[in-house]
C-alpha cells in the first residue's frame, strides 16, 4: 500500500522520519489507487446501509429486549473496530517502527492514522453503549470494569494524539508515540477480559466468548456478521484516506523545513 501511496522516496533522505521534500501539491496516489479507494468507499457505505436496513426492518425483535436489540448490529462492530482493529494496527505499526530492521516512516504514519480513526470509534463505542444502556440497564453509565477500562482507552488514545502534536524532531516524536502506543495497548486485553475477570454489569461476549459459540441466531446473527464486515470496510476506507492526509501533511512539514533552511542559509551568506 505504501509503495503506491508514497511514491518514490525523496532524494537525500536523512533518516526514516526525515523531511519529505516531495512537492506537496503532487497527488500522492496513482489513478489506480484512487479508483480502488473510491470502490472501497462505495462498498463500505453500501454495506453499512444494508446493515441498517436489515437491523431496523428485517430482523425480528428479541425475546427479552424487544426492539432495543437492534443496537446490537452497530455497537459491538464499532467496538470491534475501536478495540481490536484500530488499536491492533496502531500498536503493531508502532512495534514495527521501534524494531530497527523494520523501521520505515510508513509505520509511523499508519500508527498515527489508525490511532486517530480509532479514537473516533472508541468515542462512538461509548456513545452507542450509553444509548443502549439507558433503556436496557436503566442507566446511561456504570463504573464497572468494562466501561471504565474502555473510557481509560479513550483517554490513552487522546494522550497519544496529544503526544503527536508536541513540536520537535520527527524521529523523537515517532519514538515517543510508538512507545506510548505499545504501553497503551496493555489496556486492550484488560477491556476484553474484564467481563470474565470481574463481576460487571456489561454482559459477556456474544461472538468471541470462551467457547467461540455465538449466542445469537438466525437473521440476527447474519446481520451482526454483516455489521462487523461493513464497519471493518468503513474503517479501512477512513484509514486509507487519513493515511493520505498524513503523507500530504508530512510533505508540507518537509517543505516548511526546506524553506526555513533556505532562509537561514541565505541569511548566513549575507
Amino acid at each position, binding site marked *: 500500500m505504501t509503495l503506491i501511496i508514497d511514491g518514490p522516496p525523496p532524494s537525500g533522505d536523512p533518516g526514516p522520519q526525515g523531511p519529505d521534500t516531495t512537492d506537496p501539491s503532487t497527488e500522492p496516489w496513482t489513478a489506480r489507487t484512487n479508483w480502488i479507494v473510491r470502490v472501497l468507499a462505495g462498498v463500505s457505505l453500501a454495506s453499512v446501509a444494508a446493515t441498517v436496513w436489515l437491523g431496523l426492518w428485517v430482523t425480528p425483535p428479541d425475546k427479552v429486549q424487544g426492539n432495543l436489540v437492534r443496537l446490537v448490529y452497530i455497537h459491538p462492530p464499532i467496538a470491534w473496530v475501536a478495540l481490536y482493529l484500530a488499536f491492533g494496527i496502531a500498536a503493531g505499526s508502532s512495534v514495527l517502527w521501534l524494531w530497527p530492521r523494520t523501521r520505515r516512516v510508513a509505520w509511523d504514519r499508519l500508527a498515527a492514522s489508525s490511532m486517530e480513526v480509532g479514537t473516533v470509534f472508541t468515542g462512538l463505542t461509548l456513545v452507542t453503549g450509553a444509548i443502549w444502556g439507558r433503556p436496557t440497564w436503566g442507566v446511561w453509565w456504570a463504573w464497572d470494569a468494562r466501561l471504565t477500562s474502555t473510557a*481509560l482507552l479513550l483517554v*490513552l488514545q487522546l494522550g497519544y494524539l496529544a503526544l503527536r502534536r508536541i513540536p520537535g524532531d*520527527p524521529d523523537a516524536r515517532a519514538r515517543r508515540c510508538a512507545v506510548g502506543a505499545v504501553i497503551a495497548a496493555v489496556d486492550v486485553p484488560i477491556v476484553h477480559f474484564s467481563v470474565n475477570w470481574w463481576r460487571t454489569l456489561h454482559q459477556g461476549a*456474544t461472538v468471541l466468548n470462551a467457547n467461540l459459540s455465538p449466542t445469537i441466531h438466525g437473521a*440476527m446473527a447474519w446481520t451482526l456478521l454483516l455489521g462487523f464486515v461493513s464497519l471493518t470496510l468503513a474503517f479501512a476506507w477512513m484509514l486509507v484516506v487519513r493515511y493520505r492526509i498524513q503523507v500530504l501533511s508530512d510533505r508540507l512539514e518537509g517543505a516548511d523545513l526546506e524553506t526555513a533552511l533556505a532562509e537561514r542559509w541565505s541569511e548566513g551568506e549575507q
Partner: protein
Amino acid sequence: MSEQLMAPSPPAPADGSGGDGRRPAPAPRHPRWRLIVVGAVLVGAFGFLLAKGLGGSLDYFETVDQAVHAKVMLGTKTFRLEGLVVPGTVHRSPSGVNFVAAGSKDRVHVINTGNPPELFQPDIPVVVVGHFVGDTFVSNQIIVDHSSQYVAKYPNRVKAPNGSTR
C-alpha cells in the same frame, strides 16, 4: 536536524534578540504551556478514571449468596446486590416495586422505591442499589443486568402474505 538549522548563524544571545538586530526566530506554533495544560488534564482524567473505576472495587456488585454470607459485616452499608427476580414475587405499588431476588442458594426480599427500568420483569437478573434493614434489602435503584444471548421473540411466527415476519 535542529543543528542544521542553527549552523549558518552564530549562537543567539540570552536575550533572544538575534544579536545582530535581525528578526528573532519565530515562536513555536504550539506554546509549551498549552502542552503542559493538555498533559495535566489528560493525567488528571487518567487518575480520576483509575481511582473511580478500579480504586474502590473491581467487582460491580455482590451476589445474593455473597451478601447473605457477609450480611453482618455489611451492616447498613449501601452496596449493589445482584440476583434473579423470582417469578410470582413481583408486586408493584404506586411508590415502587417489591420482589424476591435469588442467588444460587439464598434469597433476599427487596423493597424498591421508584420506577424500575423498562426491561424489569420476572426471571431476569437485576442489580439493586441499597442496604439491608433486617432481612430486607431496601433499594432506590434497579439496574437490569441482561445476558449476552439474543433470541427472536417469535421464532415460529407465520409469514404474512408480503413475506414479513415481524
